[in-house]
Structures are given as structure tokens and as C-alpha cells.
């Protein structure tokens, strides 16, 4: 085993943020989850005891009668903001003194870097190029992700859970966003830590081998099924895509109407809201991992092949 290689990747100055992300995101997820649990405990207490619900201040934060519900911004908020600014400044200065920003050789179009990686926050997009053609991974999917995020508040018809941490009242929305966020981070981690020269997969402990050749042959779905006729292949690919949308839609439908509260929310969702939700959920949250598995495990490159575009 060669741990120097992964050590080299991890200690690259531009990869420091990713290592930081690996620590910071779990911490904040835990931090939010802990507060959600506290709120959820309070919610179940109040649900069980209407008399208490009528008088309780309804927050997990402590409250005593006579306490002001509001505080002057100066000094109570501003001093925290000032402190936060100080901490960030110190952190940044230490970081800037300790680690130098990378500077490679002057740009040279005749000598390509291998691997040539995008900046870390776009490595996820670059990793998606393995699973989809550039028009989809590099253009359509980012646009879909952004429009999906823009649509997010308009398709969430849940009237509960505005302004407090809770898991119990907002399972679907949190899981939906959480899966997307996790996928994005996972793609970044794969692209940064597991991809080497030629964008080939190198496990931690493996040395980057610039001469490595892979004998993997990528197949298309039609080829796997032994279909030679391109027209028939196209029809089969389209059918497979349709079948996937139908099955994933059914599965998501089952997931979002499992609990009584979710069913109640589902009833408040308009057909348009639901269709938009399903479209984004199937395409991004289900489609991306499905295609990743097809490609990584079954070595299937395209499901649908047409003269103009492939999926």
C-alpha cells in the first residue's frame, strides 16, 4: 500500500477546503440534528398534552416569565457579530500565513496537466462527465440543479416547520435536499481523492500510475441486450428511460406518502407542484445515482443512443 499518494492529494493547498468540508459538514449536520431532536421532543410533548400546548412558549430554548422576548441588537447581537468577524479574521490570517496559495508553471497550452482538475467546487460537475455526456453533465444538469433549487420553496407545500429545526414535521423536504447535498459532496470527494491520471479510479493506498491502461469496454444498453438495429435500440432505450421514470416515480410516491403527516401534506400539493417535484426528484436524486451504478458497476455507458444526443 502506498499512503504517500493520498497524503499528497490531501495536503495540496487547494484541497484544504475539501478536508475542512469533510469535518465541518458532519459537525453542522449533527449540530442541526441535535436541535431538531430537542424540538421534536417538545412537539411530541405538546401534541400529547393540549393544556400545556396552550400555555407553553413553544420553543426548546429556555424561557421564564418576565423575560423580554426581544433583546436590543446593540449590544447583544452586535457583540457576537464582532466576535465572529474577529474569529474569522484570525482564522484566515493563520491560514494565509501557514499555507501558500498554489502557483504552478506558467500556462502552457502545449503541455496538458494530467489529471487536469477543475477547482474543487466544480469537481463534482467534472466527475459527472464520467456518467453523462458533456451537454448533460456540464450544462443541462447544472441548470436543472439551479432551477430545482429555485423551485424548492414553491413545491414544498408543507405548512409546518417554518423557523425551527425539526425532522419529524419535515421528513420529505429534509431527506430530499439532504440526498442532493450528499450526492454533490460525494461527487466532489470522488473527483478529488479517487481520480488520478486519465480520470481513472485510484483507491486510497494506490499509486497514481500514468501508464495505466484499462481494458474496460463500455457498452450501451442495446449492446448488452444484443440489439444491433439502431432504430430498435433507440426504441428500447426510450422504453428503458420511460420505465425508469415510471418506477422511480412510483418509489418516490411511496416514500413521500408513507406517514400520515406526509399524506396530509401530499393532499395539499397541487398537481403542478407535484409534477415539478417528481421531475426533479427522479432526474437528479434518482437518475444520477442510477446512472452512476450503471456505469461503475455494469459498465453501461448509454441507455439511449440517438444520432443527436446520448443519455
Amino acid at each position, binding site marked *: 500500500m502506498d499512503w504517500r499518494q493520498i497524503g499528497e492529494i490531501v495536503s495540496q493547498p487547494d484541497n*484544504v*477546503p475539501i478536508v475542512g*468540508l469533510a469535518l465541518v*459538514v458532519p459537525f*453542522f*449536520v449533527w449540530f442541526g440534528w441535535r*436541535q431538531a431532536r430537542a*424540538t421534536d421532543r417538545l412537539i411530541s410533548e*405538546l*401534541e400529547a398534552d393540549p393544556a400545556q400546548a396552550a400555555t407553553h*412558549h413553544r*420553543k426548546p*430554548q429556555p424561557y421564564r416569565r418576565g423575560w423580554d422576548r*426581544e433583546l*436590543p*441588537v446593540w449590544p447583544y*447581537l*452586535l457583540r*457576537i457579530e464582532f466576535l465572529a*468577524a474577529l474569529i*474569522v479574521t484570525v482564522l*484566515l490570517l493563520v*491560514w*494565509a500565513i501557514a*499555507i501558500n*496559495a498554489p*502557483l*504552478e*508553471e*506558467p*500556462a*502552457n*497550452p502545449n*503541455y496538458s*496537466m494530467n489529471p487536469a*482538475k*477543475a*477547482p474543487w*467546487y466544480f469537481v463534482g460537475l467534472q466527475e459527472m*462527465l464520467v456518467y453523462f455526456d*458533456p*451537454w448533460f453533465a*456540464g*450544462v443541462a444538469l447544472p441548470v436543472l440543479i*439551479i432551477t430545482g*433549487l*429555485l423551485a*424548492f*420553496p414553491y413545491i414544498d407545500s408543507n405548512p*409546518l*416547520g*417554518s*423557523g*425551527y*429545526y*425539526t425532522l419529524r414535521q419535515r421528513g420529505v*423536504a*429534509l431527506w430530499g435536499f439532504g440526498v442532493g447535498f450528499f450526492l454533490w459532496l460525494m461527487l466532489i470527494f470522488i473527483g478529488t481523492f479517487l481520480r488520478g491520471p486519465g480520470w481513472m479510479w485510484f483507491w486510497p493506498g494506490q499509486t497514481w500510475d500514468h501508464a495505466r491502461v484499462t481494458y474496460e469496454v463500455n457498452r450501451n444498453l442495446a449492446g448488452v441486450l444484443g440489439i444491433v438495429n439502431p432504430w430498435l435500440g433507440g426504441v428500447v432505450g426510450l422504453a428503458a428511460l420511460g420505465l425508469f421514470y415510471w418506477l422511480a416515480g412510483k418509489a418516490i410516491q411511496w416514500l413521500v406518502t408513507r406517514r400520515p403527516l406526509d399524506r396530509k401534506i401530499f393532499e395539499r400539493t*397541487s398537481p403542478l407542484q407535484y409534477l415539478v417535484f417528481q421531475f426533479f426528484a427522479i432526474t437528479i436524486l434518482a437518475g444520477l445515482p442510477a446512472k452512476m451504478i450503471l456505469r461503475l458497476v455494469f459498465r453501461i455507458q448509454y441507455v439511449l443512443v440517438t444520432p*443527436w444526443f446520448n443519455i
Partner: protein
Amino acid sequence: MPGLRDGIRSGINGLRAILKTPQKTQIWKSIFRVKHERKDPRTRALGTVGNVFLHLHPGKINRDAVRYSYTWGMGGISFYLFTILTLTGALLMFYYHPTKVQAYRDILYLEHDVPFGRLLRNAHRWAGHLMVITVWLHMLRVVLTGAYKKPREFNWCVGVLLLVFTLLLSFTGYLLPDDQLGFWAVTVGTNMACATPLVGHEGPFGPQLGMTQANDVRFAMLGGTIVDSAALLRAYIWHCVAIPLIAVVFMGVHFWRVRKDGGISGPAPVVLESEIKPEPER
């Protein structure tokens, strides 16, 4: 000369009085406008509301929102990082020419000859990376607390666009040192644009619509068919002028809407499942 001695003495006494209670001087009053009394909530609020730098804050705030645990402070930290980036960026601009001949040498000059130049460049780069992280965490917090819900949907959308601008700012800055790292990262990034459906020369239906290397969307981004001097200048202008200006406008809207949509979203009192109001008629 008793007159002079008395004059000096009274002058010193006057200075002493000023040092003791500077609030009573005309200069102080002219700067701070309102008297600030610890025990008077009204003047306390005026200290915030009447200050141009602080007036985006309300005078008073939900006592639980002051806690770090609810907001994580990520929105504010992102804004603070943006101001740091603006300052360090402006200083870097003094030493940088966006030309193929000069750019790389300017970075070397900055790193080896300019006093604190390396620190300046490091701080700018790491603040940029840090801002991407804090913006993502801010978004995560807003989702976890349901802070995007009515009436804050639109502000969420403004926030999503600000996230995009943050990434674009970082990306355009990547090319500016004009080294192998930036060159190939931007080459990889912009090559994807070739494949844009309809307007890229390698994208679906692009060739059918007459797209070539020299007229498609990537050409417009780079000002050429490869990442060269025109691309460097374009990246520089987007990075230092255009995107920051657009982002500042969106930030203004973002902060203003936070206030207009009722201030910070919580911690709000919980609503129970049994209290869901029947849906209003559409």
C-alpha cells in the same frame, strides 16, 4: 505672565473634561447624532437604527435568534468574507495586469518582492474558498430550519443566485494567475460549454444550427477558441467588475428582504400537526 499660565491651566482642564466625558463634546455629538443611554431602550435602539452601517439591523431582535446555534452566523460570515475579498482584491489589483505578458510575472513579483504580497494573495484565495463553504453551510441551515417558507420564498431564490455568483466569482478568479492550474481548470470548465445544446458546436443540435468553434457560446466566454489573452481579460473584468457589481445588487435585495419578510426566521414557536389550518380556496 499670569494670563498665559491661567490660559494653559484652563486649557488642560478643558482637555481633561473632554477625555472624561467625550460624549459631551460638539465633535462627538456631531458624529453620533443621538445620545446613548444604557438604561433607555429607545436610545439603545437608535444606536443601531440611526447608524448607517448598522441600520440593516432592527432595533430589537428575537431573544433566541441571538444564539449562535440557530443561524450558525453563516450568512453574516459570508458577507464579511465578501468585504475582505473586496478589500484584498482591490489591493491585489494595484499589482496585477491582465495580460499574457505580465500576469504571471505580477504574481511572482507579488510573492517575492511586494511587502506582505504573498500574505495578501493567500488571504484572498483562502477567503474565496472559505466563502464557498460558508455560503453552502448558510444554504444548509436555511433548509434545516425551513427558513425558505412563506413569505421568504423569493429571498431563497435571490440566495440561490448569490450562490451561483459566488461560484462564478471563484471560478473566474482561478484563471488570473495565468498558471497551469488555472489554465487547465478553466480549459476543462469552458470545454463543457462546447456541448451546450443548441448554442455549442459539440452540443445536441448545435452543428445543425450552424455552430462552429468560432461562433458558439464558448467562443463568447473566452473571446477566442482557446484560453488566451482575450479570455484572461474577460475573466479579469467579470471577476473584478461585473460579477461583484451584480452580486452587490443582489446582496442588497437579499438583506433588505430579510428585514421586509419579518426579520430572521426564528427560532419560531412550533406549530403542531393538529393546528394545520385548512387550505385556503385557490
